């Protein structure tokens, strides 16, 4: 496969996933912000989400106060925000367009219809009562794209690179969503209503509130919530599940491309092993925030190494 094609597929997978993840984060935050004090401080919630999505500094250059309305606009429709939904949709479609030949019609239509629909939206689409519906729509478009890819793509390199982008982005997102509420998971965090709401919000943002009950059959407990999101193989959005697929996908890419491996394979293997054989107590011993920051940093390095080996066009 052309390196440039692989690059576009990888980023198509990432941006499509990211659009859905921003919507997930936003929906959880919106819910928290609606809960009145003392359960939550709305401003804190929006600030946390901005940090989680990595777009706080740019927002700060445009707005002095972190008001809810401005934050929502910035994260949804404002194309100036490179981490916002609008920019993700645009970038996913741009990448899809350059690799039309590698996509199935169903995938292309999933992306292209989203893009067409998005261009028709005006600011009323995110106002008041319409916002939850909008966020559900974005989430469903990402689910549709993932379903179209899973159900219609040949299992060749096109699938592998697109899927690699999806699962790498998902791992990054799960780490960020959890990290943004890490305070509620610190040892000694009170099992009060405020923290309970935080734990719920985290689970909700990865569609895992019911999954928790199915796995643990118990009241929410911060350590178990963290364990579910980090170490449980059954949860498709857990860090372990994501890295297992990153490693498998990188392995099959190596096999399909002459067998050569690189630093990205070593990194992915190391991260997978750490999660697979790790225990939640051990991981939390150095602090949840420290652990998750490490994951996010390594994820960035892993993405760069994948680029070096496959996406940037090696020339002897």
């Amino acid at each position, binding site marked *: 496969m*052309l390196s440039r094609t692989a690059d576009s597929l990888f980023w198509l997978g990432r941006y499509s996933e990211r659009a859905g993840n921003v919507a997930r984060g936003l929906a959880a935050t919106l819910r928290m912000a609606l809960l009145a004090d003392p359960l939550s401080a709305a401003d804190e919630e929006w600030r946390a989400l901005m940090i989680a999505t990595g777009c706080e500094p740019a927002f700060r250059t445009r707005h002095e106060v972190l008001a809810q309305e401005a934050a929502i606009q910035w994260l949804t429709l404002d194309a100036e925000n490179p981490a916002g939904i609008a920019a993700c949709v645009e970038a996913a479609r741009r990448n899809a367009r350059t690799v039309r030949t590698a996509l199935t019609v169903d995938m292309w239509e999933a992306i292209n219809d989203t893009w067409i629909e998005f261009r028709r939206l005006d600011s009323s689409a995110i106002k008041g009562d319409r916002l939850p519906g909008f966020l559900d729509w974005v989430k469903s478009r990402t689910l549709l794209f993932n379903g179209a890819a899973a159900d219609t793509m040949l299992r060749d390199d096109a699938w592998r690179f697109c899927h690699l982008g999806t699962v790498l982005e998902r791992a990054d997102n799960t780490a960020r969503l959890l990290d943004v509420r890490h305070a509620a998971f610190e040892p000694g965090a009170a099992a009060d209503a405020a923290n309970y709401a935080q734990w719920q919000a985290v689970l909700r943002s990865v569609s895992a509130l019911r999954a928790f009950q199915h796995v643990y059959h118990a009241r929410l407990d911060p350590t178990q919530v963290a364990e579910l999101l980090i170490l449980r193989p059954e949860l498709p959005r857990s860090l372990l599940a994501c890295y297992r697929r990153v490693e498998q996908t990188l392995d099959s890419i190596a096999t399909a491309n002459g067998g050569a491996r690189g630093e990205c394979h070593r990194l992915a293997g190391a991260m997978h092993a750490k999660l697979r054989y790790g225990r939640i107590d051990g991981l939390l011993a150095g602090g949840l925030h420290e652990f998750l920051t490490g994951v996010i940093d390594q994820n960035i390095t892993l993405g760069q190494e994948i680029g070096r080996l496959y996406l940037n066009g*090696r020339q002897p």
Partner: protein
Amino acid sequence: MADRPASAFDEMHANGVIRPPYAEMARFLEATGQDALDQKRREAEVLFRRIGVTFAVYTEGGDPERLIPFDVIPRILSREEWERLSKGLEQRVRALNAFLADVYGPQEIIKAGRIPAELVRENEGFLPQMVGFTPPGGVYTVISGIDLVRTGPDEFYVLEDNCRTPSGVSYMLENREAMLRLFPDVFTRHRIAPVSHYPEELLETLKSLAPPGCDGGPKVVVLTPGPYNSAYYEHSFLADEMGVELVEGADLFVRDRVVYMRTTAGPQRVDVIYRRIDDEYLDPEAFRPDSALGVPGLMAAYRAGNVALANAPGAGIADDKAVYPYVPEMVRFYLNEEPILSNVPTFMCERESDRDYVLANLDKLVVKLARGSGGYGMLVGPHATEEQRADFAQRIKARPGDYIAQPTLALSTVPTLCDSGIAPRHVDLRPFVLFGRTIRIVPGGLTRVALREGSLVVNSSQGGGTKDTWVLDDAPPAQGQSQSAAGMRQTMGGMSQGMGGMTQIMGDMSQSLGMPAPDPTPAAPANDTPRGDR
């Protein structure tokens, strides 16, 4: 029908009778009615938008990815009409190719005094880099698009040859697919020659030019300037249909005069390049040094015989508008045959006698730039104002060599679905000719239609649309013809308004559906690096 000018030949409805190829279509249109057709037109638009068949127009604001309007009423040719066209096309393309082999070789046509030497050697389309080099298979014009217009039952003219990177074939294919989806019933009532095998024919043609000794079969790629090129959809469509890689210049590199592409498994050799990049951007080492679209060293690899390029660089000399008047002479000179397809008589302003005639008859002529494309920079004499004509007269006097002129032709019309109902609109036809070891022509082509009433400019960049083009495999059933003809007269009642003054030639057609000026690929926004620190 009284106010319909006698000079405009309608392909469906000539002299008050439905012509045989349209008999079934006339019945269908009559039975279907405007509302149902309007509904189909809307469905067609949704279909094209969903598939993403778009066309970028640079000079306008607004939606950068526009649809080319698609008309749901097909243009129909009988098998007999097509056979004659097809023979004429093959003859013409053979002559053009022989001309190219000659001007880059012994130049016998010049020595024989059949074409002026300076017209060839001083022509911008003439590439000195190609002199003395024979391309693989001796073929220069692997893919040509020949633009035809019609003025009567048996009168077809070649308006222009396109020997560089003719585009539009994806519309021929997508239009047919759209028609199959929109009107399955109509297809069962006709026997229409298929066109969907074009990509296979193209791939076979390209493979037949591969250098000898490719391991594991020739590796073919399509080379595009990138997603910002107006014809990008077509590039990706053809690559997809042929099952080959769509590459940009940066995906290729040359080492030891062999072309490779950068892949996830390391470098991979390339044998045949169907390039949709203009000559001057192909290789910064051989042509424009500022080209970021091309591949450094590509021409050296080509001249070493290690890669085939389709079409050959330098093929543009054969479709130059100043060379065009000599094509019938090429047919006689190289093939010893009489041309089957006629040229439109052309006045070359460079010649004094022609220039005097042109200046005296500007109100009757169409004046074009000898090297323009896309319908820009032309004067349609009968429709122009006194001022515009005076302006062109000045320009012709200042730079006579830049201009040619042609008489106005009474172009044929085909019924077209317009806002006000079905009405006749002027059309042209671009069939595509493939030349490898043999010549292959898929029966059909791209019919372009001037959607504005009375307009003769069919360019997609100037508000033209397209139609599906049918070649019937046999004559449709004859029964009921007179009845439907009578009915048609009613339906067509609204068709005749405002047809005056349409006896002029169509605008020239763009070689590559409007390739924009110098570097058509602005830097694409880069994918971001992963989100940074928190």
